[in-house]
């Protein structure tokens, strides 16, 4: 085979470091993961709330993401209940956002003159969040490696300006770069202190958390947690405290996912739960918008004052 596999493929942590480096140079705020359970990088306030209102904002970060129903007790080479997304948000979405993205692939060793990279229609809609956007999934030689979305609405509010969101599936990308067939075989790092795989770090976690998600999570307590989080979120919304209210909503949302994994929610009830979260999301977004407005949208001038990038 004439393929030129790079002599030392990027380790998982190098992949993250390269992306951090690249997007930092583009001018993004490099954020840290949010310290609450969430299903995707979109839930990080640096994406979800910052997409609201007129203030410009650009950020990039790794977000550990939890999807309890995707657990496979560590037996499936492609699926995890805990995984990583690399998330980039650019607001307003720059004219050359696609080129910026393709450049980021070059930075991690994917040459677009060698690999077939395609933007294939895939639109995003989250009934739970009252949010939608249009965009693509990005294919690398037929494999989906990234979600690319132009937010149009969040929590029922029009996005003006529009935020461009790029979510890389880090494990998939790394599996491709390292040419391995199982997530657990991914090389996390190979340094002077030893060679550590993804499985070394996370396999036991997948086994035990799957057991918890599917078998052991206390359903009654979870229902109570949900009710409490919803109630608290509402109380905080009434006090115009969008950020703590948002955390309560995240808690409600994750609790709902756990209940779902425990199959404790029937189909009809499911819809009702989704509507409850949606109602919270809507009020929180409005509250957040109002709070920024009350502050006079302080970041409106940030781009003018900032040092021109590039």
């Amino acid at each position, binding site marked *: *085979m*004439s*393929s*030129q596999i790079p002599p030392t493929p990027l380790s998982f942590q190098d992949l993250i470091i390269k992306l951090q480096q690249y997007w930092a140079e583009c001018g993004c705020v490099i954020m840290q993961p949010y310290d609450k359970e969430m299903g995707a990088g979109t839930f990080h306030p640096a994406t979800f709330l910052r997409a609201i209102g007129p203030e410009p904002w650009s950020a990039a970060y790794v977000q550990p993401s939890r999807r309890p129903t995707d657990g496979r007790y560590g037996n*499936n*080479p*492609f699926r995890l209940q805990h995984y990583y997304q690399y998330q980039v948000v650019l607001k*307003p*979405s*720059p*004219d050359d956002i*696609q080129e910026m993205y*393709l450049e980021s692939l070059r930075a991690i060793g994917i*040459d*677009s*003159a*060698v*690999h*077939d990279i*395609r*933007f*294939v*229609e895939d*639109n995003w809609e989250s009934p739970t969040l009252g949010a939608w*956007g*249009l965009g*693509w999934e990005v294919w*690398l*030689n*037929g*494999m989906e490696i990234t979600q690319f979305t*132009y937010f*149009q609405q969040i929590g029922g509010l029009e*996005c*003006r*300006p*529009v935020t*461009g969101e790029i979510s890389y599936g880090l494990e998939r990308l790394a599996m*491709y770069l390292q040419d391995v*067939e199982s997530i657990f075989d991914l090389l996390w790092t190979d340094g002077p202190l030893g060679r550590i795989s993804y499985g070394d770090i996370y396999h036991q976690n997948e086994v035990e958390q799957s057991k918890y998600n599917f078998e052991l999570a206390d359903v009654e307590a979870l229902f109570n947690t949900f009710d409490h989080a919803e109630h608290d979120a509402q109380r905080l919304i009434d006090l115009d405290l969008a950020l703590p209210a948002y955390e309560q909503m995240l808690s409600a949302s994750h609790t709902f996912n756990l209940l779902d994994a425990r199959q404790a929610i*029937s*189909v*009809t009830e499911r819809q009702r739960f989704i509507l409850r979260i949606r109602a919270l999301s809507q009020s929180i977004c409005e509250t957040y918008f109002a709070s920024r407005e009350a502050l006079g949208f302080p970041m409106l001038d940030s781009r003018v004052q900032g040092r021109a990038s590039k």
Partner: protein
Amino acid sequence: MNKADFLVEIGTEELPPKALRSLMTAFAENLTKAIDEARLEHGAVHAYASPRRLAVLVEKLGLQQDDRTVQQQGPAVKIAFGDDGKPTPAATAFARKCGVAIGELSRSKTSKGEWLAFEVVEKGRAAAEILPGLVEQALTSLPIPRRMRWGDGDVEFVRPVHWVILLHGRKTIKAPVLGITAGNQSRGHRVHSSGDLTISSPGSYLDTLEKDGYVIADFERRRALIISGVTAAAAESGGSIIDGESLYDEVAALVEWPVPLLGDFDSKYLSLPREVVISTLTRHQRYFPIADAEGNLLPHFVTVANLDSKDPGQVRSGNERVIRSRLADAAFFWDTDRRIVLASRQDALNEVVYQHGLGSLFDRTQRIGTLATWLATKLNMNSDDVDRAAALAKCDLLTGMVGEFPELQGIMGRYYATADGETDAVACAIEEHYLPRYAGDKLPASKEGQVLAVADRLDTLAGIFSLGKRASGNRDPFGLRRAALGVVRILIECGLDIDLKALIAKAFAIQPSGKAVEADIADELYVFVTDRLRRYFLDRDPGLSVETFDAVMVRQPASLLDFDRRLVAVQTFARLEQAKSLAAANKRIANILQKADNPDGLSINQKLLQEEAEQALFSSLVNAQRKVRPLLAARSYAEVLNELADLRDPIDRFFDNVMVMVDDDKVKTNRLALLGELRALFLDVADISRMSIG
């Protein structure tokens, strides 16, 4: 020279592949319409599209609109001038508005009177001035389900727009379109081309893009290249492409520079159900499957890259890797799904809501079972298999495989049922009950499948109707029209002799709403189904007239099969030479009977028949009645009408010689009775008085 080719190109980010063709066509159609309405002459119009562009080339487009005279109408002459002949204020105001003296106004006459008028010559505008507006107008009405905004602008389109070309001859029209100043600069392929490409004239557009830009902008040519490319690649592997037609359009909409590549997968996956492998390749990856001369799948596929890669081997192995993990996933579902028998999933159907107010999927399968059993009994079939198939019909929705490949519903049901040792009839009916899935799709081949398919659709129709929901305009979220047409097709084409009204009544009776049996809602559904029936017959036979359909429809034949036979008979009858006068006679009889308030229950008294012509008609009638009775019972309607055609002469003679509405009440009533029986005889087949025969 007053004409030149015109080019518009809208350069965008990647457009939705499934919509690309319709966007392309609509753009060209809308623009042509706008140009026509603007009175600009033009030649042929060509539509082009690729993932990053929509373009229209209009040949020989006029550079200038023609001048035209526009008449402005003023006040009526009678109020424009007073009795003294002097202009009234109305006239002076109009003249002032037109900026001329009253003497310069002309007059316009119509049948309704005479008005003051003023004629202005409207100078034709330069095409360059109006084209940007026409293009915007054409873009505004594109069929875009959801438009988007981007950056901090307010412009909305399918995807962000980056460049626009407006080129009339060699002249660039530098006007704003979709927020961008148009120019003559296009862009080529993302990788193989960089920077702007100057398009010097509309005629060089395709060539420049292809030679310098590595973009084949002509959709049809790109599609043809893909077909020949993948066919050649498949031949390399010793096989040929299957299921290509369903993919060519979509793949052509995904690439600007198609490069087919042959790939392989492990032949152990060929032990998976064939449909699973094909779905994995086509639906999930847009790869073309390959089969040998006998139609057996081969462990190869063709993918179409959008790139002349520096290292095609990496593109190939990347794609092979994806399909490997997908097939491994499918194999996992195939193994785990079969660890549980299909029948044991029935309980879990209780957990899945079918539709609020219509219970769970379990409830639905119970209703389908009841209806299917009822149908089987009517058709003298053994109902055990349909009952069992109904119970299992929706179980595969809960399997991992159908969760991942929803398009395999029914098909997986068949595989899993077979694996469980269910009978072939049951397994087959599970798959076939989804047929027909779309207009023109195949129908269930087995009787069990047919019965289950009809029951499934009737349950949907009666259920949704009982919730008060209907199809309206182009909104039919429950697929009611498709369901009704499916029922029509199966009943007729599969020859199921079923009383439609009874079937509808039964379907309503088992709905959970309880108020099911209300007659008007059943009638409404009957009308809904017969509306599809009309469409179905008209599509099947373009020569069929609505009057002919109505002639049968008024009889409301119980079985659609019976309906079909009557219709065919009436159409054959219409071609007989006697048809025209018999249709006219029937209409005449109908009128006479109506004027006499449609007397009912009259009987003919032979002794009162005075005239020779009425006696002759009577004996012909009796004779015909005798011959027709067994034919009617055998539904040999064509033969019935053939017999009745012989009545033309006696009927004609009757009307030539006999007066019906005579003073003698007894004689009159007797003649009405004679005509009544005659009419009833024809009505046994159809109301031919409604037909208009040329």
